[in-house]
């Protein structure tokens, strides 16, 4: 029996959310918002993983979602710590103010 909502729908939703996240990363200059957009992109990837897991009846997809969440948690912790440190140093979290790695 095919599922009520086809997997393709979820994949499409995931794509749209991913694209929105990418837009957010590119367009926002507030470092925190950039971060939030990254989280949004990760989430959309999670959604696709879960959708395919259902499609192929393999729970490995769920495991990867779980790992992505864990890594995201670590990444958020480190990222926010960096933001705090940068803010202390520069009194700004505008990522356009940060270009010390200029070639």
């Amino acid at each position, binding site marked *: 029996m095919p599922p009520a909502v086809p997997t393709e729908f979820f994949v499409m939703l995931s794509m749209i959310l991913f694209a929105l996240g990418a837009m957010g990363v590119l367009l926002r200059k507030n470092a925190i918002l950039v971060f939030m957009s990254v989280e949004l992109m990760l989430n959309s990837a999670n959604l696709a993983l879960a959708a395919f897991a259902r499609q192929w009846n393999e729970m490995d997809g769920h*495991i990867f979602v779980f790992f992505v969440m864990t890594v995201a948690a670590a990444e958020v912790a480190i990222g926010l710590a960096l933001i705090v440190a940068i803010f202390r140093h520069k009194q700004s979290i505008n990522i356009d103010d940060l270009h010390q790695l200029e070639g």
Partner: protein
Amino acid sequence: MSIEVLLFIAFGGLAIAFAVGMILSKNAVHSALFLIGNFGCVAFMFLMLNAPFISMVQIAVYAGAIMVLFLFVIMLLGAEKTTDTTSQRFPWLTGVATFLTISLLIALGLPLLSGFTLPAYQGADPLVRVTNAAVDPTLLISPETPPTADTSEDAEALPEIVYGLHLTVQISGGTLAAPVVFDDILFGETTDFASLPAGDYTVTLLRTDTGSPVARPLPVTFANGQVLTLTAFGELDLNTSTLVDLEIVQNSLEAPQNAEGRLLLFNGYTDPFVPLSLVDLGGNRALDIRTTDGTPAIIDPVLAEDIRYGEAPIVATYPKGTYTLAIVQPIFTISQTESGDQRRTISDYEIIHELNNFTINADEELPLLLVKNGLQPVTDDTAQPGLQAAPIFEFQSVVLRDSAIQTNPTFGSPGGVGLILFTTYLLPVNLVGLLLLVALIGVIIVTRPFGEKQQRRGNIRRKVSRPLVSVINQQTGSDVVVEQPKLPAGEEQK
């Protein structure tokens, strides 16, 4: 359009709306709140995708913990009002970003929109195994060695003398190049599962010793997702040298609900007209029968009834635990009706086999085969010609506890995810744990204040301690010699 699709559209649209809101809102706090909403919608999507565990984690960890962290940092830094507008360093970026994003969407979405559908899930390859429960009656007629009675209390022990056949089972046909052979299966033995591609096959049963077929080749069809036990049972017909029957028992890998175990009851024993029942005797270990209007009825909990000879097995679920079970058969009384027909009425029930300390595990499917097997010579004098030793009967399944099938945990359940995490993915889990630890230390190091201040504070304390000693010395007149704290060379110069 089903209710699910409607729900999907509603929550999907909401998720997109929240995402857009997050991107566009000027206030970072609002953005964060939008993101939480988006996460909630995605969690709902997870629920729709049969992933309740992930869904809960999404709510708790993502929408909860991580977003709290975000909000906390935003409020800490006072960065809710973004400075996006102050610098317009890359004015071209907006256009380029929009273009790239849309092209990404098109590249990904075009195949889907143009009618491409994912191939449907076919299910796993069928798994097949063989159980040998076939009895050779010639051995019953002239036992070469007198069978020894198994006097031990252990109901699970297989009788030492087994009047069984050694079978070899060949499965040929389908897309197989060579037939799959289960060689030399002893009586009571259950082979491991063999994975075959789905298709049409022919099953051939051979005696291992002579190599002659003992049953007509049986055509079967194996479909994807099937888990099958080919059960050879019955007596070898002395005249045709063929087995009476080969039953294909359908197993299921699906977990029974509510911490129950699943029993698969198959009757290869009685004459076809006597249906058997499986009864939980309870603590008193005696059959509790009440008789109303001359018809006896069993009061004990009945797990399964009307298990008929050679028919598809009866599935019974029962809560996990250890029980005293009994196989019970009815005793008929034959009476003449007025019309001259014979009428059979149940006059009593008798226990034909008792299963002491029978453990039913959850997440397990336990096939119980009730088959014929001789154990001890007949004691009653109503011996029939041709069957000198009345056989005593034994449950093969009782012996073969390891032939129980571990059912798969429910898809997406915490148990299922946890099981895989702790078996297949144990090393990655550990690595991720290590990563979290590193992140923890990293956070401490990154946000640590610069070291100079601390050192200075330490020096101040030392400076105090020096005159203190001399003051004590002066006041007490004593010669308290306190080792002077040694300052670093740089400090002395100051």
